[in-house]
Structures are given as C-alpha cells and as structure tokens.
C-alpha cells in the first residue's frame, strides 16, 4: 500500500468563509488508488475540506498538492483539468438539459478527448437506469437518478481523484446500496476516491481508510477496520 505514490497531500490546511476559521490545520493524504472517507458530525467542516481541494473556499492556507502540482496556486476552474472531479453536496444537475448533455458537460475541460462516447458507455454500464433515460431532462429524474447523473458527470472527466460529498444523503436504502456498489466498481477500476458520508457504517464498509473530523480538526484516523472497532467511533457515529 505504502509503495503507491502520494496523490493528494494536505498539510496544515486552514480555511474559512468569513473571519473565523472552519478548518484549523488539517493533515490528510491519499495515495494513488486509495478509497478514503471522512466522517464527522454536521458542520464539522467535511464539505469545506473538499471545497478547499477544489479551490472553492474563499480563504485557505497551508499545503495543498495534487500529483506533483501545487493546488494553492490554481483557480477553481483549473482544478478539473488536473484530474480532480468533485460531486458537490446536494443533487446538482443541469435540470433543463438531457441526461446525455449533463454527462457531456462533465467532460467540459476535456472536450478534445476522442473517447467521450466510450466514457459515456462505461457510465451507462455503471448506472443502467441512465441509459434508459438518456434523453430525459435531468430535472425530471428521481433524486437517486439525479445523483447518478452528478456522479456520472464527474466520471466523464476520467478523474484520478473523485471527491464525493454525501452522495447518498436523503436517498432510499436500496438506491444507497446501488450507489455504493458503483463506488466500489469505480474504485476497482483504478480511480482514487475521497468520500464524505453521514452514513458512517456504509462509509467504513466501502472505504479502506478513514479520517474522523471534529469541529475543524482531525481527531482520529486509521484503516476502516480499526475505526469501526474504535469505541469512540462506535459510540459517536455507529450508535453502538
């Protein structure tokens, strides 16, 4: 595991929106091919970490490196081209565009790529429901289908790292399962994943490693097995 190259390196990340910091010095690493999750209570700052990686937080300092590039000098619109695809919190689709157009827009910064039809086929294999609804307007899809569109749109980029912000929030249990099966497939296809998830049991099921975030600080980290055995995690997040 440790032989794999460092993909994402975060050191001493402080970030916030107004005067106050939301993140007070975060250290986090992802090696090539890892599936890592961040767990933590509401307002702990989980989304802010993902948004800082995507350069969407107005104020952030500290080391942010991705595959050799210094992220802190990049603007948010330059991040996807580096190979980072972000599925933001909430079901963010383009409602008046077809499923296909939504997916195509995911490759916005890779428009010159010649294999876009193949990429779309792979997404349809991952989410067969989207193939059936390829020409339907995304705004008329069910919540779960919209989230599939959002994930599929991110995959159109062929990212090295996929950032997932509570992708199963508010979805029916069956759809949540479907979604997590898809994440495991995406991961085994070679894409590294950083997953933020409220459903801690599920997150530790699919991810290999995890970080516990409390009010802007990492308080625990370890393999998923370690974390799910940890008494504090069990009490606070697994309700055991």
């Amino acid at each position: 595991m440790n032989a794999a190259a460092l993909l994402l390196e975060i050191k001493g990340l402080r970030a916030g929106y107004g005067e106050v910091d939301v993140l007070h010095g975060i250290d986090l690493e992802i090696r090539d091919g890892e599936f890592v999750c961040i767990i933590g209570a509401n307002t702990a700052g989980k989304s802010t970490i993902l948004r800082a990686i995507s350069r969407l937080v107005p104020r952030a300092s500290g080391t942010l490196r991705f595959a050799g590039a210094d992220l802190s000098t990049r603007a948010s619109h330059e991040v996807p081209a580096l190979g980072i695809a972000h599925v933001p919190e909430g079901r963010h689709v383009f409602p008046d565009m077809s499923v296909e157009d939504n997916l195509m827009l995911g490759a916005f910064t890779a428009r010159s790529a010649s294999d876009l039809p193949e990429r779309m086929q792979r997404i349809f294999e991952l989410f067969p429901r989207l193939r059936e609804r390829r020409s339907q307007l995304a705004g008329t899809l069910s919540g779960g289908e919209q989230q599939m569109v959002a994930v599929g749109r991110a995959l159109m980029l062929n990212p090295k790292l996929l950032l997932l912000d509570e992708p199963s929030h508010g979805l029916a249990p069956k759809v949540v399962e479907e979604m997590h099966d898809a994440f495991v497939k995406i991961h085994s296809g070679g894409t590294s994943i950083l997953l933020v998830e409220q459903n801690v049991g599920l997150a530790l099921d699919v991810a290999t490693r995890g970080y516990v975030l409390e009010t802007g600080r990492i308080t625990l980290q370890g393999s998923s097995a370690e974390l799910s055995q940890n008494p504090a995690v069990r009490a606070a997040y697994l309700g055991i």
Partner: protein
Amino acid sequence: MKKWFALAAVIAVAAVVPLLLNPTGYWIRVLTFTLLFAAMAQAWNLIGGLANQTSLGHAAFFGIGAYTSTILLLKFGISPWLGMFAAGALGGLAALVIAIPTLRLQGHYFALATLAFGEVMRVIANVWTPLTGGPGGLSVPFTPPSFAAYSFKQLLPHAYIALAALIIVTAIFEFIRRGAMGYRLRAIRENQAAAEVIGIDTTKVKLQTAVISGALMAMLGTLYAQVAVFFDPDTVFSAAAISIRVALIAILGGVGTAAGPILGALFIIPVEELMNDLFSAGAAGLSQLIFGAILIAVILWRPRGFITLWDSLRARFARGEARR
C-alpha cells in the same frame, strides 16, 4: 431554411413600415423609440436573460453613452458615430467596475446594488456641472444635416438607424446565446455549483457578459441623444424610465429569448403612448395607473412572457398538422 426566410420577411416588413407613416408625424417618433427600446432591452437581455442577473441599473450605461458622445461633439466636434464607440468603451468599463463587486450577489441583492449604481450616476451627472451641464441638461448642437455628422432634418433616418441597431444587437445576442459562451452561461444559469465543479470560470463568463451588455447599452445611449436632441440627468439616468423599463420589456416579452425584447417593446411603448393620449386629459396619473394595471394583467396572464404565446400557438398548430 424556412426560418431564414421568415426572418428575412420580418425584416422586410419592418423596413417598409416607416415609409408608411407620416414622416413629420407622431407615430414615426413612437416607432423610433419602440425600436430603440427593443434594442436596449435586447442589450439588457444578455446579462438579465443569458446570465440571469436582473440588473436594475442599466440606465447608468445608457446615460454614460448619451453624455460621452454629446460631450465629445460639443467640446471637440467629434462625430457622434465615433463618439458612439467611445461611449461603448466607457460603458463597458463602467460595467466592469460595477460587475466585479456585485456579480457575486444573488437575486434581489444584485438588483438592488445595480439600482443604487444607476442612482449614483444620476446624482453625479446632476452635480458635475462643468462637464455635464448639471440639472439643466445638454443640447446636442446643430450641425448641417449629413449622414457623416449623424444629423438629419427628419425622423425617418433615425427610425432606420434604430432598426439597424436592433438587428445588430439581436444578432450579437443570438451569436452569443448559440456559441460556446452561451453554453457556459446556460450551465451557470441552470446550476451554478455544478458549473463551477466542471471547470467553468463562472466569474469570467459573467464579467464578459456584463461588459458586452453595458457597452451596447451605452452605444444605444448615443443613438438616443441624437434622436432626442436634448436630455438631462434625470431622463437618461432614470431608474423608472430606463432601467426598470428595459428590464420590464424583456421580462414581459420573454426573458432570455431573442424575440422577447422585441415583442415586449412592440407592446409596452405603443400602449404606454396610447394610454397617455387617451387619459392625459383625465385626473393626474390616471394614464400611468391604467398602464400599470395592464402590465399586471399581462404578467398574470403570461408570467413567462409573450413568447410563450407563440410557443403554445405553434404547439396547437403542430397538433392540427398531425391530425391531418
């Protein structure tokens, strides 16, 4: 093909109408202002429709345009045709300056901030007397009639210039809407958060749109100055008569569509004139009251603009065809 033919027919009809009106009469004036306001609403439609940022401050750019070309003509004898481009440059610059701090604002906050900007420009024009002539306004100096000097004895040439302006601004609108920039704007409009994470530089696209919109609006301010011959700060920087009216025209016609501002202007400007004609003898403000009531009724009837009337007519026609 059929579409281009229809378009050519509409332009041909529009080109003939001015000839049918009494060249020294009242209706040629109404027509000129209708065309001008349609062009203004189309310029507004770039930022208000394509970028979905409801500006209520477009009078700022309009007034800047009217003053720029007129001051250049008065002080340096520069033809308003050239002054129009200086107006466009200044209008674009002003749009950039106001857009940088305000474009982050959403919805009502953006509308209020731009409204305030328009009012600030009005106040500045009123107090900066050495340059603008202050509240007394400016008269466009008389020059011997010629096309090069943008000076005409009659309104007819002005009507054609306004028509040409409307065609050009509409062409620019359509070009942007159908192009890569329009695609980016559409993504931003439909879901800003999603547009950001797929790598669209949302700030840059909106700024570009704001600058083009402001520049065009300022150039139309020059056309207005040449038709009106006299204007003052309270007219060209008016929140009600310019800023809100152009937004209303586009919204009433169908915001974000090329035909919307044209339909809106064809309705609002003549109806407003008609109301003034019919009811100005009555109690003070009666005509405005009736005009306001008509606007409310229309918005309730067609909340998404007259353009939807066309869509439902076409749908009905298509059903009829299918039945046959």
